[in-house]
């Protein structure tokens, strides 16, 4: 998110999901779309049917790879080298869009200098992808009329996550594949309302609508809207909160509907942090492993038990409607927050979520024209500044949100942890089709839980043979941080030297192993890459 916002001025998906089907070249990198975003994948299938070319870059042979025009399995954590290699080719062959670069961007000369060294041969050496494939990828994408990039957490969950995203933005700008119908850069949001949580200021550095907390004008605006004295100091990120608790500067944590005991890297560290809290409040619908550590647990209502809105990955604000009363004595989360605020001494008087939305649209420029009445039907895509504005299908038409698009000259940096003799396998994590994030909800759907019931480790047939592992065998996986046991799944979805495990399952929680090294800018932990060793359990 931080990466795209820096390049373009907005971190959101540039186009709408439906527009993808009219793209004539879709480059999918770090997204197992058919598993994580099935209804986005549908549009990719349709685009393919209409004759689009598909480029897939993924260490695993994911389902989309089977229908790709070119699929490459680059070494884990080498995205920047791969993309720089493509851009080197594009410039050398003259496939770039000089008119677009001159008119709409800045910083191109510095990028050009860096790209000079990334010949396809050099990129091939770093990434393990053949120079021919790199040239083919460059040609397909650059020569398209409407090229789209689709990416997900496979790109962002690295210590170089921000670099990866900025490099994708570079690629789209040198070819001018941005700011038009079906043409752009599309981060797919993992959880359902991530977009909304960010839009609403659920971030330590910004108020609603991404207004920086460090800007005195914003501070003044919200101080008068909220009738309170506000802090101009940027707050802590999730990972900093965990270390703050461990080290004692942070005393209390109030968690709403999240399960860091399963979703965070390095579970042992998280458990220690949560246990160190003087006060841990957890508000959730199930007694999650995180809730089990709390001092107080507040039962919230599920999405079926309350009114409100969600904002999906394409910036579309849509209604959530109450179908049943909350189960037992559970209460909608907004009501619980309001009650606590009133008791704390900061009065809140909302009677309905609609009243809260009225306040949101009065302080959030991009939501300015959003009312419940207008959301009937298809919802509205922000920016929607006024009540007669129809909403925005794609961003950066004629002009970037930040004015000119900004190129960043970025060099490849190897991942924080690399394989060695003791830990010779690359370990990577992801989702499987039937589950969602930490499984709090999906694992309580009997139909879904019976589809895929336990965690497993994907191992290449060649490696399995070398280790004497057969399908279904128990295998011990250890990293520098922890050890766990899982069942072996022998499959050529993964390459030799790489193993994969989904992170939804608490029993064999993959995050026991993963690395908490952080991206220096946006503080996303390196969940996607670490080094492990495997041993057959006798």
């Amino acid at each position, binding site marked *: 998110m931080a990466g795209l916002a820096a390049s373009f001025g907005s971190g959101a998906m540039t186009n709408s999901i439906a527009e993808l089907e009219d793209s004539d070249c879709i480059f999918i990198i770090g997204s197992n779309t058919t598993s994580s975003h099935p209804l986005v994948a549908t549009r990719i299938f349709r685009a393919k049917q209409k004759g689009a070319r598909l480029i897939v870059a993924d260490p695993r042979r994911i389902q989309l790879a089977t229908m790709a025009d070119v699929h490459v399995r680059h070494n884990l954590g080498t995205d920047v080298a791969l993309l720089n290699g493509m851009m080197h080719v594009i410039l050398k062959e003259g496939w770039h869009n000089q008119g677009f670069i001159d008119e709409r961007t800045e910083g191109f000369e510095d990028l050009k200098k860096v790209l000079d060294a990334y010949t396809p041969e050099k990129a091939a050496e770093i990434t393990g992808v053949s120079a021919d494939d790199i040239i083919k990828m460059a040609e397909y994408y650059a020569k398209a009329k409407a090229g789209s990039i689709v990416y997900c957490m496979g790109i962002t969950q690295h210590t170089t996550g921000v670099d990866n995203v900025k490099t994708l933005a570079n690629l789209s700008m040198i070819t001018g594949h941005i700011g038009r119908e079906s043409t752009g850069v599309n981060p797919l949001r993992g959880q359902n309302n991530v977009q909304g949580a960010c839009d609403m200021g659920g971030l330590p550095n910004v108020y609603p609508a991404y207004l920086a907390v460090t800007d005195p004008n914003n501070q003044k605006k919200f101080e008068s809207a909220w009738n309170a004295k506000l802090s101009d100091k940027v707050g802590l990120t999730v990972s900093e909160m965990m270390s703050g608790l461990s080290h004692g500067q942070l005393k209390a944590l109030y968690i709403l509907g999240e399960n860091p005991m399963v979703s965070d890297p390095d579970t042992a560290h998280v458990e220690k942090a949560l246990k160190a809290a003087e006060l841990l409040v957890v508000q959730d619908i199930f007694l999650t492993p995180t809730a089990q550590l709390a001092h107080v647990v507040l039962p919230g209502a599920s999405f079926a038990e309350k009114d409100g809105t969600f904002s999906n990955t394409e910036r579309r604000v849509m209604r959530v409607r109450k179908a049943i009363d909350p189960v037992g004595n559970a209460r909608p989360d907004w009501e619980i927050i309001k009650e606590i605020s009133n008791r704390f001494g900061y009065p809140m008087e909302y009677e309905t979520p609609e009243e809260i939305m009225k306040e949101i649209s009065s302080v959030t420029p991009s939501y300015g024209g959003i009312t419940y009445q207008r959301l009937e039907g298809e919802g509205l895509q922000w920016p929607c500044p006024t009540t007669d504005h129809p909403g925005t299908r794609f961003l950066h038409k004629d002009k970037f949100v930040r004015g000119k698009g900004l190129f960043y000259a970025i060099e490849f940096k190897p991942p924080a942890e690399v394989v060695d003799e003791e830990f010779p396998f690359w370990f990577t994590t992801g989702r499987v089709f039937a589950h969602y994030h930490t499984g709090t909800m999906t694992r309580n759907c009997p139909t*879904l839980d019976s589809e895929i019931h336990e965690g497993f480790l994907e191992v290449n047939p060649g490696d399995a043979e070398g280790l004497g592992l057969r399908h279904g065998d128990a295998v011990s996986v250890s990293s520098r941080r922890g050890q766990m046991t899982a069942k072996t799944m022998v499959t050529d979805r993964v390459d030799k030297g790489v193993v994969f495990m989904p992170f939804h399952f608490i029993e064999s929680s993959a995050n026991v192993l993963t690395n908490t090294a952080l991206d220096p800018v946006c503080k996303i932990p390196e969940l996607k890459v670490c080094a492990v060793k495997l041993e057959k359990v006798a």
Partner: protein
Amino acid sequence: MDYRTVLTTCTHCGCGCNFYLEVLDGRVIGTIPCKTSPINEGKLCIKGWNVHEFIQSKKRLTQPLLRKNGELTEVSWDEALDFTARRLKEIKDAHGADSLAFLTSARVTNEENYLFQKFCRAAIGTNNVDHCARL
């Protein structure tokens, strides 16, 4: 017999498909995909088809819990809310606003996210608010 369908938005991924929850005598029994949705056009994935199953799961939390003598014990809402507000205040008074932190959620509504960060910023007085979706 009371049967109704309620149009809403899926909570299982960022696509945001629309469907109708089917409610029979107060129980959610199924989902019907919305044909006019610009996102899913009458389709759903396996997660959307089964989304109703967790809603009234027997494992749902139905009563506030407070840790007493080491055990999480069922208490009234008043007791749980008073405890939470009082402890937040005590900690703020003793160690300052920046000694508290808040994790908001990609699973709750916009309105709830807004309210939670407003509580954190305006009532507590800190910008220590983040969500787990960086992960």
